[in-house]
């Protein structure tokens, strides 16, 4: 096993009385695309700034390629950052912004010239080298920030919500480009975002954070399909979460009915929460449905209809339907056993992983 | 940045604070407790508080400063208001500022000519049959010239305050049925109170200490606190008494600053519009 590029061991960080990071442990491997995903104030930017060297930790250890990072100032770390608002130097033009890191290190002039032009070519900006920063559009500024950060050939690139200032269309284009760039450079990206779609689309692995702690990490598919708790299920994607009881292995009860499911390893009759994704619910006639709900309202979303309906227990159900439904009509909902995801209360990630391993291995 | 490097570049500025900010204030307070024979005493304060001359002078000084400030506000507010309605208002504002770049003494000097016994104003008064009057070396001439000098310093903060008002507010006021006059009284005026306060601060305290004007324009008829300090320091060499009056002026300054709210900086700065708050 190779040494992880970054490792956090029991890292805690206090700002005064406020605990920004709570016992953070993780390892990041070389050459992967990681996302730190969470609402604002969840501690994801604190982690980023800790890696970059702008924060010290209150306790715990941060290792970079196996060596402690403590006492290494930010300008000596082989890490570069793309800042949220790009932090481009307004007094320098595009070329000089990109050249900044090289000229700081007194790299010879002609080498700077070729390397800057190469970097600009990589982000398709070679024609704008002599432009002033304030003459660029948001998307162009974003590219300058990328070129400026990668020209130093960092081992690790940190991206602090770099796409949040762009409009939706541009943001989606940039998602492809960043992903492609990461694969081309082969270096590790750590991407901070509060946008779950962004994280799901780009990452090899996602860390979901809330209130200074990492709640769950895994591939986008794992996290989407097997959220560990209510917060993760709610934060990632849209979901219907109802209270239920785990009658026994592979059988769960909610809204007064028992259903076959794919989860196991819990106590009999343990109170649980049940997650059903809106796109996993198929609309059918009431007699064919596993659940019967009454339609309240629907919105046309382009590629689907978003239906809001209520069951007999007054739980709200969000359904993505390809066809329109009649308002106030009773409809049946059909779903497969594997569409049901059962979550225990207060389950830690390690236990969750162990339980999953245990019955999925069977 | 490491702390030692920080301290090194900070040293000259700290020395300045110590030597030219703290020391002078301390020294003027210290000096106020000495009489002409360099003996420590509170006699200066006793003299000040019991002498009707000093007290009357203080009140007078206050009264003049009050009148100057009042006239300046009355003239400046409409001017600032109308300036804001002009097309190239930045340019016209610059023209308001321009006279402040002319040395104050030259402006005072101009009025010596204008108000002189045979000067233009008296020629005009003679022409329309009123006949020449003594204008120079009167209270009137002092207040007139002081007001003249202070007007730009009052127009600027008020102008800025008016310029900052969101035009939508004025439209809203009209929309809700207010007349122009009602909009002025109930919307514009309350929103520009800060500008007026800033202007009053920029004008009132300096008006207490315009000793050169009292000398050149007021003759020796008008004595302000500033004049008294100058006289004690440079003519009678009674530094103790001069410092005592200085301390009184400093106290007044703090009182007026406390009364008018937040502290405002000197005038030139408002002047260039460099501090856009």
């Amino acid at each position: 096993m190779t040494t992880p590029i970054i490792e956090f061991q029991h890292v805690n960080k206090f700002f005064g009385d406020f605990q920004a990071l709570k016992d953070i442990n993780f390892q990041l491997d070389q050459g992967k695309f990681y996302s730190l995903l969470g609402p604002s104030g969840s501690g994801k930017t604190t982690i980023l700034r800790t890696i970059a060297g702008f924060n010290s930790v209150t306790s715990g250890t941060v290792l970079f390629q196996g060596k402690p990072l403590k006492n290494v100032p930010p300008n000596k770390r082989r890490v570069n950052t793309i800042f949220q608002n790009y932090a481009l130097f307004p007094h320098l033009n595009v070329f000089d912004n990109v050249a900044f890191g090289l000229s700081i290190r007194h790299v010879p002039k002609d080498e700077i010239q070729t390397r800057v032009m190469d970097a600009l070519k990589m982000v398709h900006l070679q024609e704008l080298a002599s432009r002033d920063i304030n003459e660029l559009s948001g998307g162009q500024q974003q590219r300058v920030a990328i070129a400026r950060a990668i020209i130093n050939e960092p081992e690790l690139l940190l991206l602090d919500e770099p796409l949040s200032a762009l409009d939706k269309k541009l943001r989606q284009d940039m998602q492809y480009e960043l992903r492609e760039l990461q694969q081309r450079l082969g270096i590790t990206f750590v991407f901070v975002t509060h946008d779950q779609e962004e994280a799901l689309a780009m990452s090899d692995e996602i860390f979901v954070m809330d209130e200074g702690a990492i709640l769950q990490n895994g591939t986008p598919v794992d996290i989407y399909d097997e959220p560990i708790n209510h917060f993760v299920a709610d934060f990632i994607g849209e979901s219907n979460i109802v209270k239920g009881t785990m009658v026994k292995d592979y059988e769960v009860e909610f809204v007064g009915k028992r259903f076959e499911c794919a989860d196991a390893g819990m106590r009999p009759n343990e109170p649980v929460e049940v997650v059903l994704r809106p796109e996993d619910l198929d609309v059918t006639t009431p007699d064919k449905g596993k659940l019967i709900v009454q339609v309240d309202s629907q919105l046309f979303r382009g590629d689907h209809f978003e239906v809001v309906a209520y069951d007999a227990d007054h739980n709200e159900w969000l359904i993505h339907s390809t066809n329109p439904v009649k308002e106030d009509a009773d409809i049946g909902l059909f779903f497969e056993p594997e569409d049901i995801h059962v979550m225990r209360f207060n389950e830690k990630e390690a236990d969750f992983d162990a339980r999953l391993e245990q019955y999925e291995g069977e | 940045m490491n702390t030692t490097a920080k301290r090194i570049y900070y040293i000259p500025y700290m020395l300045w604070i110590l030597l030219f900010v703290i020391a002078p204030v301390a020294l003027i307070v210290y000096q106020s407790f000495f009489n002409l024979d360099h003996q420590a005493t509170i006699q200066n304060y006793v003299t000040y508080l019991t002498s009707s001359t000093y007290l009357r002078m203080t009140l007078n000084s206050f009264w003049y400063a009050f009148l100057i400030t009042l006239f300046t506000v009355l003239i400046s507010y409409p001017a600032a208001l109308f300036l804001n309605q002009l097309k190239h208002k930045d340019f016209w504002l610059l023209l308001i500022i321009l006279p402040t770049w002319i040395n104050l003494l030259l402006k005072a000097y101009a009025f010596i000519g204008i108000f002189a016994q045979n000067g233009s104003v008296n020629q005009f008064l003679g022409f329309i049959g009123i006949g020449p009057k003594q204008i120079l070396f009167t209270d009137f001439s002092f207040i007139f010239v002081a007001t003249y000098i202070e007007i730009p310093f009052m127009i600027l903060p008020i102008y800025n305050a008016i310029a900052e008002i969101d035009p939508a507010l004025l439209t809203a006021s009209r929309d809700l049925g207010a007349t122009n006059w009602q909009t002025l009284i109930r919307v514009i005026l309350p929103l520009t109170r800060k500008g007026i306060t800033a202007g009053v601060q920029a004008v009132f305290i300096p008006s207490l200490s315009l000793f050169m004007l009292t000398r050149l324009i007021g003759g020796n008829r008008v004595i302000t606190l500033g004049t008294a300090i100058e006289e004690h320091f440079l003519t009678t060499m009674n530094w103790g008494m001069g410092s005592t009056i200085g301390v009184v002026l400093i106290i007044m300054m703090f009182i007026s600053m406390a009364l008018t709210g937040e502290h405002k900086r000197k005038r030139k700065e408002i002047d260039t519009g460099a501090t856009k708050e």
Partner: protein
Amino acid sequence: MQRKNRLGRVYLVIVFLVLYLPILYLIYFSFSSGSTMNTFKNFTWANYRTLFADTRLIQIVLQTLLLALLSSLIATVVGTMGALGIAASKRTSTRNLMLSLNNVLMVSPDVIIGASFLILFTMLGISLGFGSVLASHIAFSIPIVVLMVLPRIQEMDHALIDAAYDLGASAPQVLNRVILPFITPGIVAGYFMAFTYSLDDFAVTFFVTGNGFATLSVEIYSRARQGISLEINALSALMFVFALLLVLIYFFIQVHQSNRTKRNKQKARNAA
């Protein structure tokens, strides 16, 4: 509305007349061959000839300019370092205390500054003259420099400094290559203000200047007390033209700059 506008125009015309008449009056009489500002005799350049032949006055003008250049230069250096120091202080209370101390000289009346500096120089045994005047001008110019530079520092996105460190810059490099270029407009404005403060000052100089040294303001004061001399009128005319030129240059730079930013924004929009 129309009527009100016209009334406003009339009012403004009167204000402008009052503001400019005394100055124009001075200039007008600078071309008079008489000896008073009462009646205009004949047109003449004689007052200007006298002015340029008055070596004492020319020398004073040069001294005043030198004093202004020198004092504002030193004040700008010290003030900029002070502003950097204040901005770097971690606790808000320290920063507020420093700012209050900084502003003491800004709000104090000139007589108080002059009188207290006079006591200071006397106590320290410094003789009055060019040195004491220079020290005083530096002293009262420093706070204005701080007030011009500090907002610029605070306006600076802290991420720029982080970015510079992130790209490998050392502390001195961050200062030289990022912070100083960014705050340069503030420094220039501060220098400019300090310069005009120095040129304009009368009261403080009047207190701390000895017999051997005079600035233009002090000289005009003493001459004005002796009565009218049309040479002074000629001088004011020249100073007015000088001020006018400065203001016009300042104005056109501003217009040019705002046009430039507008153009740039347009370009950016087209590019987007």
